[in-house]
Protein backbone atom coordinates (compact mmCIF):
# COMPACT_ATOMS: atom_id res chain seq x y z
CA UNK A 1 0.00 0.00 0.00
CA UNK A 2 2.08 2.81 -1.25
CA UNK A 3 1.12 6.41 -1.94
CA UNK A 4 0.90 5.53 -5.57
CA UNK A 5 -1.87 3.05 -4.92
CA UNK A 6 -4.02 5.74 -3.52
CA UNK A 7 -3.06 8.17 -6.23
CA UNK A 8 -3.99 5.73 -8.92
CA UNK A 9 -7.35 5.04 -7.33
CA UNK A 10 -7.86 8.74 -7.02
CA UNK A 11 -6.89 9.27 -10.65
CA UNK A 12 -9.38 6.65 -11.73
CA UNK A 13 -12.13 8.26 -9.76
CA UNK A 14 -11.20 11.65 -11.13
CA UNK A 15 -11.19 10.44 -14.69
CA UNK A 16 -14.50 8.71 -14.29
CA UNK A 17 -15.92 11.85 -12.79
CA UNK A 18 -14.66 13.92 -15.70
CA UNK A 19 -16.07 11.39 -18.09
CA UNK A 20 -19.45 11.61 -16.44
CA UNK A 21 -19.43 15.36 -16.47
CA UNK A 22 -18.54 15.44 -20.13
CA UNK A 23 -20.86 12.81 -21.46
CA UNK A 24 -23.95 12.69 -19.32
CA UNK A 25 -27.04 14.43 -20.56
CA UNK A 26 -28.67 14.57 -17.20
CA UNK A 27 -27.79 17.26 -14.71
CA UNK A 28 -28.00 14.96 -11.77
CA UNK A 29 -25.63 12.53 -13.38
CA UNK A 30 -23.26 15.41 -13.87
CA UNK A 31 -23.58 16.21 -10.23
CA UNK A 32 -22.66 12.67 -9.40
CA UNK A 33 -19.64 13.00 -11.62
CA UNK A 34 -18.64 16.10 -9.75
CA UNK A 35 -19.00 14.27 -6.50
CA UNK A 36 -16.60 11.65 -7.81
CA UNK A 37 -14.11 14.33 -8.69
CA UNK A 38 -14.39 15.87 -5.28
CA UNK A 39 -13.93 12.51 -3.63
CA UNK A 40 -10.81 11.87 -5.63
CA UNK A 41 -9.45 15.18 -4.44
CA UNK A 42 -10.24 14.43 -0.85
CA UNK A 43 -8.64 11.09 -1.16
CA UNK A 44 -5.54 12.75 -2.52
CA UNK A 45 -5.43 15.14 0.40
CA UNK A 46 -5.77 12.35 2.91
CA UNK A 47 -3.13 10.28 1.15
CA UNK A 48 -0.64 13.10 0.96
CA UNK A 49 -1.31 13.88 4.56
CA UNK A 50 -0.51 10.31 5.48
CA UNK A 51 2.53 9.76 3.31
CA UNK A 52 4.20 13.03 2.45
CA UNK A 53 3.85 15.23 5.48
CA UNK A 54 5.00 14.07 8.90
CA UNK A 55 2.47 11.72 10.47
CA UNK A 56 1.50 14.10 13.25
CA UNK A 57 0.62 16.85 10.74
CA UNK A 58 -2.95 16.20 9.71
CA UNK A 59 -3.67 19.45 7.88
CA UNK A 60 -4.47 17.47 4.77
CA UNK A 61 -7.28 15.72 6.51
CA UNK A 62 -8.71 18.97 7.70
CA UNK A 63 -8.62 20.32 4.18
CA UNK A 64 -10.42 17.21 3.09
CA UNK A 65 -13.06 17.86 5.71
CA UNK A 66 -13.48 21.33 4.35
CA UNK A 67 -13.76 19.78 0.95
CA UNK A 68 -16.60 17.61 2.12
CA UNK A 69 -18.36 20.61 3.57
CA UNK A 70 -17.95 22.47 0.33
CA UNK A 71 -19.27 19.48 -1.54
CA UNK A 72 -22.30 19.50 0.64
CA UNK A 73 -22.89 23.17 0.02
CA UNK A 74 -22.33 22.73 -3.64
CA UNK A 75 -24.72 19.84 -3.85
CA UNK A 76 -27.40 21.77 -2.08
CA UNK A 77 -27.10 24.78 -4.38
CA UNK A 78 -26.77 22.59 -7.42
CA UNK A 79 -29.92 20.73 -6.70
CA UNK A 80 -31.77 23.90 -5.94
CA UNK A 81 -30.73 25.28 -9.27
CA UNK A 82 -31.71 22.09 -10.98
CA UNK A 83 -35.13 22.31 -9.44
CA UNK A 84 -35.50 25.90 -10.53
CA UNK A 85 -34.37 25.08 -14.05
CA UNK A 86 -36.69 22.14 -14.17
CA UNK A 87 -39.58 24.34 -13.27
CA UNK A 88 -38.53 26.87 -15.84
CA UNK A 89 -37.64 24.63 -18.77
CA UNK A 90 -39.33 21.36 -17.94
CA UNK A 91 -36.07 19.61 -18.50
CA UNK A 92 -32.78 19.15 -16.80
CA UNK A 93 -30.84 18.22 -19.87
CA UNK A 94 -28.06 20.78 -20.09
CA UNK A 95 -28.09 20.83 -23.90
CA UNK A 96 -31.66 21.99 -23.85
CA UNK A 97 -30.88 24.82 -21.49
CA UNK A 98 -29.10 27.16 -23.89
CA UNK A 99 -30.42 30.63 -23.41
CA UNK A 100 -26.86 31.88 -23.38
CA UNK A 101 -26.33 30.63 -26.92
CA UNK A 102 -24.82 33.33 -29.08
Amino acid at each position, binding site marked *: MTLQHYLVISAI*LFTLGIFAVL*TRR*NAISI*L*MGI*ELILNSCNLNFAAFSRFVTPPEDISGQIIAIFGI*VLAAAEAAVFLA*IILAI*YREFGSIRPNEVDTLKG
Partner: protein
Amino acid sequence: MEFTLKTFIFYGFALMTVASALLVVTVRNIVHAAFSLMVTLFGVAGLYVFLQADFLAATQVIVYVGGILVLILFGVMMTSGRLEMRIHIERGQLLLGGAVALALFMLLLTVIANTPAWKNRIDDGTALPPTTEKIGELILNGPFLLPFEVVSVLLLVALIGAALISRKEVRD
Protein backbone atom coordinates in the same frame (compact mmCIF):
# COMPACT_ATOMS: atom_id res chain seq x y z
CA MET B 1 5.15 -6.71 -0.29
CA GLU B 2 3.54 -9.62 1.30
CA PHE B 3 -0.04 -10.42 0.69
CA THR B 4 -1.73 -10.08 4.06
CA LEU B 5 -5.35 -9.85 5.02
CA LYS B 6 -4.91 -6.18 5.33
CA THR B 7 -3.64 -5.94 1.81
CA PHE B 8 -6.46 -8.08 0.63
CA ILE B 9 -9.05 -5.91 2.28
CA PHE B 10 -7.39 -2.85 0.85
CA TYR B 11 -7.57 -4.21 -2.63
CA GLY B 12 -11.11 -5.21 -2.00
CA PHE B 13 -12.02 -1.68 -1.04
CA ALA B 14 -10.08 -0.29 -3.93
CA LEU B 15 -11.80 -2.57 -6.36
CA MET B 16 -15.17 -1.80 -4.85
CA THR B 17 -14.56 1.91 -5.18
CA VAL B 18 -13.34 1.78 -8.73
CA ALA B 19 -15.93 -0.69 -9.91
CA SER B 20 -18.84 1.13 -8.40
CA ALA B 21 -17.51 4.42 -9.74
CA LEU B 22 -17.44 2.83 -13.15
CA LEU B 23 -21.03 1.80 -12.64
CA VAL B 24 -21.94 5.36 -11.67
CA VAL B 25 -20.80 6.63 -15.01
CA THR B 26 -22.04 3.79 -17.15
CA VAL B 27 -25.33 2.65 -15.74
CA ARG B 28 -28.36 3.94 -17.62
CA ASN B 29 -30.78 4.06 -14.79
CA ILE B 30 -30.15 7.11 -12.72
CA VAL B 31 -31.39 5.53 -9.52
CA HIS B 32 -28.99 2.69 -9.97
CA ALA B 33 -26.26 5.17 -10.61
CA ALA B 34 -27.07 6.89 -7.37
CA PHE B 35 -26.86 3.66 -5.43
CA SER B 36 -23.57 2.82 -7.11
CA LEU B 37 -22.33 6.21 -6.00
CA MET B 38 -23.21 5.23 -2.47
CA VAL B 39 -20.99 2.21 -2.77
CA THR B 40 -18.19 4.35 -4.13
CA LEU B 41 -18.50 6.71 -1.25
CA PHE B 42 -18.36 3.85 1.20
CA GLY B 43 -15.28 2.58 -0.57
CA VAL B 44 -13.59 5.90 -0.24
CA ALA B 45 -14.51 5.94 3.42
CA GLY B 46 -12.84 2.59 3.75
CA LEU B 47 -9.74 3.92 2.09
CA TYR B 48 -9.72 6.75 4.60
CA VAL B 49 -9.64 4.15 7.35
CA PHE B 50 -6.61 2.62 5.73
CA LEU B 51 -5.02 6.02 5.74
CA GLN B 52 -5.70 6.14 9.49
CA ALA B 53 -8.02 9.12 8.99
CA ASP B 54 -10.78 7.88 11.24
CA PHE B 55 -12.60 11.15 11.65
CA LEU B 56 -12.49 11.80 7.94
CA ALA B 57 -13.94 8.38 7.27
CA ALA B 58 -16.76 8.99 9.66
CA THR B 59 -17.47 12.37 8.14
CA GLN B 60 -17.43 10.81 4.71
CA VAL B 61 -20.05 8.31 5.68
CA ILE B 62 -22.23 10.69 7.59
CA VAL B 63 -22.12 13.67 5.28
CA TYR B 64 -21.84 11.99 1.93
CA VAL B 65 -23.83 8.91 2.37
CA GLY B 66 -26.27 10.33 4.82
CA GLY B 67 -26.58 13.78 3.40
CA ILE B 68 -25.49 14.34 -0.11
CA LEU B 69 -26.67 11.08 -1.50
CA VAL B 70 -30.08 11.50 0.01
CA LEU B 71 -30.15 14.94 -1.49
CA ILE B 72 -29.31 13.52 -4.86
CA LEU B 73 -32.05 10.95 -4.60
CA PHE B 74 -34.45 13.68 -3.69
CA GLY B 75 -33.36 15.58 -6.73
CA VAL B 76 -33.91 12.56 -8.90
CA MET B 77 -37.36 12.04 -7.58
CA MET B 78 -38.45 15.65 -7.79
CA THR B 79 -37.22 16.23 -11.29
CA SER B 80 -38.25 13.04 -12.97
CA GLY B 81 -41.33 12.21 -11.04
CA ARG B 82 -40.46 8.54 -11.44
CA LEU B 83 -37.51 6.60 -10.24
CA GLU B 84 -36.33 4.87 -13.38
CA MET B 85 -35.41 7.82 -15.50
CA ARG B 86 -33.23 6.70 -18.36
CA ILE B 87 -29.97 8.40 -19.06
CA HIS B 88 -29.52 9.27 -22.67
CA ILE B 89 -26.05 9.46 -24.09
CA GLU B 90 -25.04 10.59 -27.54
CA ARG B 91 -22.48 8.53 -29.31
CA GLY B 92 -20.21 11.33 -30.52
CA GLN B 93 -20.18 12.96 -27.18
CA LEU B 94 -19.40 9.65 -25.59
CA LEU B 95 -16.41 9.16 -27.80
CA LEU B 96 -15.06 12.64 -27.42
CA GLY B 97 -15.57 12.65 -23.68
CA GLY B 98 -14.03 9.23 -23.40
CA ALA B 99 -11.03 10.32 -25.38
CA VAL B 100 -10.43 13.40 -23.27
CA ALA B 101 -10.94 11.45 -20.06
CA LEU B 102 -8.62 8.74 -21.19
CA ALA B 103 -5.98 11.24 -22.19
CA LEU B 104 -6.32 12.88 -18.84
CA PHE B 105 -6.02 9.57 -17.11
CA MET B 106 -2.90 8.66 -19.00
CA LEU B 107 -1.46 12.01 -18.15
CA LEU B 108 -2.20 11.57 -14.49
CA LEU B 109 -0.71 8.10 -14.49
CA THR B 110 2.51 9.34 -16.03
CA VAL B 111 2.66 12.11 -13.47
CA ILE B 112 2.04 9.69 -10.63
CA ALA B 113 4.57 7.25 -11.94
CA ASN B 114 7.25 9.77 -12.73
CA THR B 115 7.16 12.14 -9.79
CA PRO B 116 10.28 11.20 -7.77
CA ALA B 117 9.05 12.59 -4.49
CA TRP B 118 6.08 10.25 -4.53
CA LYS B 119 8.03 7.07 -5.07
CA ASN B 120 8.58 4.54 -2.38
CA ARG B 121 6.27 5.98 0.17
CA ILE B 122 5.21 2.81 1.88
CA ASP B 123 2.67 2.49 4.58
CA ASP B 124 4.77 1.06 7.40
CA GLY B 125 1.72 0.01 9.33
CA THR B 126 2.47 1.96 12.49
CA ALA B 127 -0.67 2.93 14.29
CA LEU B 128 -1.21 6.59 14.75
CA PRO B 129 -3.31 8.03 17.56
CA PRO B 130 -6.96 8.82 16.80
CA THR B 131 -7.29 12.11 14.98
CA THR B 132 -10.64 13.39 16.24
CA GLU B 133 -9.28 15.23 19.24
CA LYS B 134 -6.45 16.68 17.25
CA ILE B 135 -8.75 17.88 14.53
CA GLY B 136 -11.05 19.47 17.06
CA GLU B 137 -8.09 21.20 18.63
CA LEU B 138 -6.79 22.42 15.28
CA ILE B 139 -10.11 23.67 14.06
CA LEU B 140 -11.49 25.34 17.12
CA ASN B 141 -8.31 26.42 18.81
CA GLY B 142 -5.77 26.52 16.08
CA PRO B 143 -4.84 27.93 12.73
CA PHE B 144 -7.99 26.63 11.04
CA LEU B 145 -10.43 28.61 13.10
CA LEU B 146 -10.88 31.36 10.53
CA PRO B 147 -11.27 29.02 7.53
CA PHE B 148 -13.69 27.02 9.56
CA GLU B 149 -15.80 30.05 10.31
CA VAL B 150 -15.66 31.16 6.71
CA VAL B 151 -16.75 27.75 5.57
CA SER B 152 -19.57 27.69 8.03
CA VAL B 153 -20.81 31.04 6.78
CA LEU B 154 -20.50 29.75 3.26
CA LEU B 155 -22.53 26.73 4.11
CA LEU B 156 -25.16 28.86 5.73
CA VAL B 157 -25.33 31.16 2.74
CA ALA B 158 -25.51 28.18 0.41
CA LEU B 159 -28.35 26.68 2.38
CA ILE B 160 -30.30 29.90 2.48
CA GLY B 161 -29.62 30.47 -1.17
CA ALA B 162 -30.68 26.99 -2.05
CA ALA B 163 -33.88 27.38 -0.11
CA LEU B 164 -34.53 30.73 -1.79
CA ILE B 165 -33.89 29.42 -5.29
CA SER B 166 -35.86 26.25 -5.00
CA ARG B 167 -38.95 27.62 -3.35
CA LYS B 168 -41.94 28.34 -5.50
CA GLU B 169 -42.36 31.95 -6.53
CA VAL B 170 -45.22 33.27 -4.48
CA ARG B 171 -45.51 36.62 -6.20
CA ASP B 172 -45.19 37.05 -9.90
